[in-house]
């Protein structure tokens, strides 16, 4: 069985900066993989390479067995790889409905757009009430829900989710993860970049630990919690203040 997404010995960076050094990752269809690690180890860069936002400087990115290294981002999206980027991930100047319409028109075609819109509004009644509101005026949690509504209706073959819980209230984080679980049950594969280790590991089948741009460990999710604890404590001296929050989440996970 060919992997849905395969990163083969990928290196990547921004201009003079290198963030990834020879990373290899595979995601099988229907599988959920968590990428864990402290701040600044290359998690977001990995997510960007996986969806074509960033071209690798060496190595290869394969989607469904086809080499896509260096091709345009929209080809990744058309191949069924969706990306929920870190931070704001909706068009702030467009209305809620236009955000969804833009995406559905492309993925579902003109004829199916109304049905897809109806489904999104049915799943998220909050959005239906605000369908004409400009998305930039939604709260952070509501914007996340909008992004989730988009991917849930689209049912991509792979969703790359980058720090979805960042800056959200616990109740919203729970809701986001319910949506992700639902996606997984419907057959989408997930690649989840997360610092909320507990949530991520509960959902995922496998976990990969990144350390300074390389894969330091990978294995089944249930073994990961323990690894994370020791791993984070081992590297505590090298990481800065953000390591503390990592400890806290790791401890709750353990």
């Amino acid at each position, binding site marked *: 069985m060919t992997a849905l997404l395969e990163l083969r010995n990928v290196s990547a960076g*921004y201009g003079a900066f290198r963030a990834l050094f020879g990373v290899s990752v595979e995601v099988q269809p229907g599988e959920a993989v968590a990428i864990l690690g402290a701040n600044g180890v290359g998690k977001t860069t990995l997510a960007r390479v996986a969806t074509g936002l960033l071209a690798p400087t060496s190595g290869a990115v394969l989607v469904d067995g086809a080499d896509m290294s260096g091709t345009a981002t929209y080809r990744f999206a058309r191949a069924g790889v*969706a*990306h929920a*980027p870190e931070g704001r991930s909706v*068009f702030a*100047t467009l209305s809620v409905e236009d955000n969804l319409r833009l*995406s559905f028109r*492309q993925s579902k075609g003109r004829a199916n757009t109304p049905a897809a819109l109806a489904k999104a509004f049915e799943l998220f009644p909050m959005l239906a009430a605000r369908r004409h509101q400009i998305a930039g005026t939604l709260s952070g949690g509501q914007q996340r829900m909008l992004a989730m509504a988009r991917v849930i209706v689209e049912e991509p073959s792979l969703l790359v989710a980058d720090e979805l819980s960042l800056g959200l209230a616990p109740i919203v984080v729970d809701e986001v993860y319910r949506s992700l679980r639902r996606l997984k049950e419907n057959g989408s594969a997930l690649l989840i970049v997360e610092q909320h280790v507990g949530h991520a590991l509960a959902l995922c089948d496998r976990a990969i630990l990144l350390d300074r741009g390389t894969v330091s460990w990978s294995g089944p999710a249930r073994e990961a919690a323990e690894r994370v604890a020791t791993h984070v404590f081992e590297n505590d001296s090298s990481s800065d203040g953000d390591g503390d929050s990592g400890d806290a989440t790791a401890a709750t996970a353990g």
Partner: protein
Amino acid sequence: MTLATGVGADFLRALLQGTPPGTVYALVALGFVLTYKTSGVFNLAFGAQAYVSAAMYYKAHTEWGWSIIPALVLSVFVLAPAIGLTLERLVFRYLRTGTSVAKLVVTIGISLALPNIFELITNFKGVVGRTPAGIVPNGAGVFYDPFGVYPFSRDELTTIGVAVFAMLCLAALFRFSAIGLQMRAVVESPRMTELNGIRSDRVSAVSWALSSTFAGLAGVLIAPRFNTLAAPDFFNLVVVAIAAAILGRLVSLPRALAGGLGLGMVISLLGTFLPRWVQSNPWLRPFQENLTPAVPFVVLFGVLVLWPAIRRSREVSDPLSGVDPPISSLALATRSARSHLIARVVTVGALGTVAAIVYFRADASWMFLVTQAVIMATIYLSVTMITGLAGQISLCQGTFAAIGGFGVYQLATLHGMSVLVAAPIAAVIAAAVGAVLSLPVLRLGGIWTAVATLAFAFFFDAVAIKFSWVGGGNTSLMQGTRVPRPVLGPWDFADDRAFLVLAVVVFIIVSIVVVQIRGGTIGRTLRAIRGSEVAAQSIGISPARARVVAFAVSAAIAALGGALLSIHQKNVNYGSNFSPVSSLFWLVLVVSLGSRTIEGAALAGAAYSIFDPLILRGTIFGWILRSPDRVPGIFPISPKWRLILFGLGTLQFARHPEGAVEYWRSRTARSLAARQRSAPGTPEAPDAPNESDAPNGAVTS
């Protein structure tokens, strides 16, 4: 009773009379909004695009004798989209994640370069004293009078019809079509649009083709309103149209249309009724004479300053801009002390040699040009101050320089003061004007500062200049704006050589002032504000105060330079020296050569004054080849190339805001460093650039 009906009829006539020019403003405003909505660019080059199509239409229809339809197809539906696609492919594709200010500067460069490129390629010379034909047969000769008070020409009715129709079509496009939505999405974030599976390159190509076609159509329709055909007319029209577009917050097409029409009608009403009021209130007379051209600039300035919602309307950044590599650091920071010293000695030596040659050997014309270069460099230091240091785009530096020139003229010629006293006083006046102007303007920030200063420059050009206490009024009309040369003790600056020395001394003093400010508290404050205004405020920095100081100092420098320029030419020469368009060219020059350093300003001064005679007329090649004649067939190159080269020089502003000089210098510094590093250890450096790029490069060196 009869009086009332008379006034009523006049009112109606004025309204109808204002409709055709209003439609023209509306058409340009619509195009402006269209470009802004679909590509996120505040496109000051819109006028240039419109002009090119109008000129093409004129050439095909009038000069080649083509009939209307093929000429229209060629100019509007072939040439215009081709220009739009070329601009998108060669320029704006690389600017998508650039700041809106960077894009604005680039469009200024294009607005200077594009008409000249067209004129060079097609050998088109501007039309003077002949009204270009419209797009309907006998458009200017057939009239319709629906209300019995004002007859519309067929051309005017066509323009009105096209404007309304185009507005409806475009509104429908944005409301109902997928591409309309995609264009708006690409403006906000091309990368996020691609994540939705949409090809952002293609979408923005469509936007540019569309908006450029619209510009072309507007140009062809507008041309019959002038009895000339020249690029500056179209640029002025764009500034007027911005006022209309801004009433629609730059995004609403119907409001832009209404704004344009309203502007035309208000101007027409004032033109009808103001003369009657003036009979009872004579003090209104100077306003009446200049009000028609000034209304749009007053509206533009007033709206920007008094309607704060405008500037908050569109400050959304691309959330995925972090994918771009960070901007490289300045060369000055990375250069070693030794190479710095060598460079400095070489520069000073070369400058000294040039100065000695000019001082002892140059003839009168070269002396004039070199002095002009030094004075222009002084003026350009004001751009270094406001753009390089404070990071604000000011398009009214020419106006400040004009205040210096007119200040000297007023004080010295009309009040008998010595020009050496008058020049600093003029500088202080300009500083005061600058400070007052900066209070409302600098709060705006970003492109709005640029637009407000542009409005001020046009306002000064249209209104202030006509007042006798500014431009000299009737005295200057009769006798010109003559300015004397000063005498100081033993030195008589009527001698060109002595005046060159004076200019150099002033330049050096101003340079020292700028360097001191740059290194001092204000300079550091300004850099902090540029880095992050919010962060700067949170540690107790007042951005307003630092910016007011920067703007006032910049205005004073410009005025001092303007005063010197007027003294040098023994005349203010407002039209050729300080017009609003010259401010644009100055900015373009400094920005493309380097807006952050003294050297950049000095080179820009040289480029302004001696680039044309030295390079384009082939003098240098003549010296190199030791031939008394210019190389035939190549020289003289058209002076239009100066505008084209420096206009296109702004293209690198978004990627290298430090300018060409600094970019080149940082590259040589980096390659020198890489060579030094690889020299002692390994004899061959297999991947030198990679090594210097690695994050742990410091460890290997």
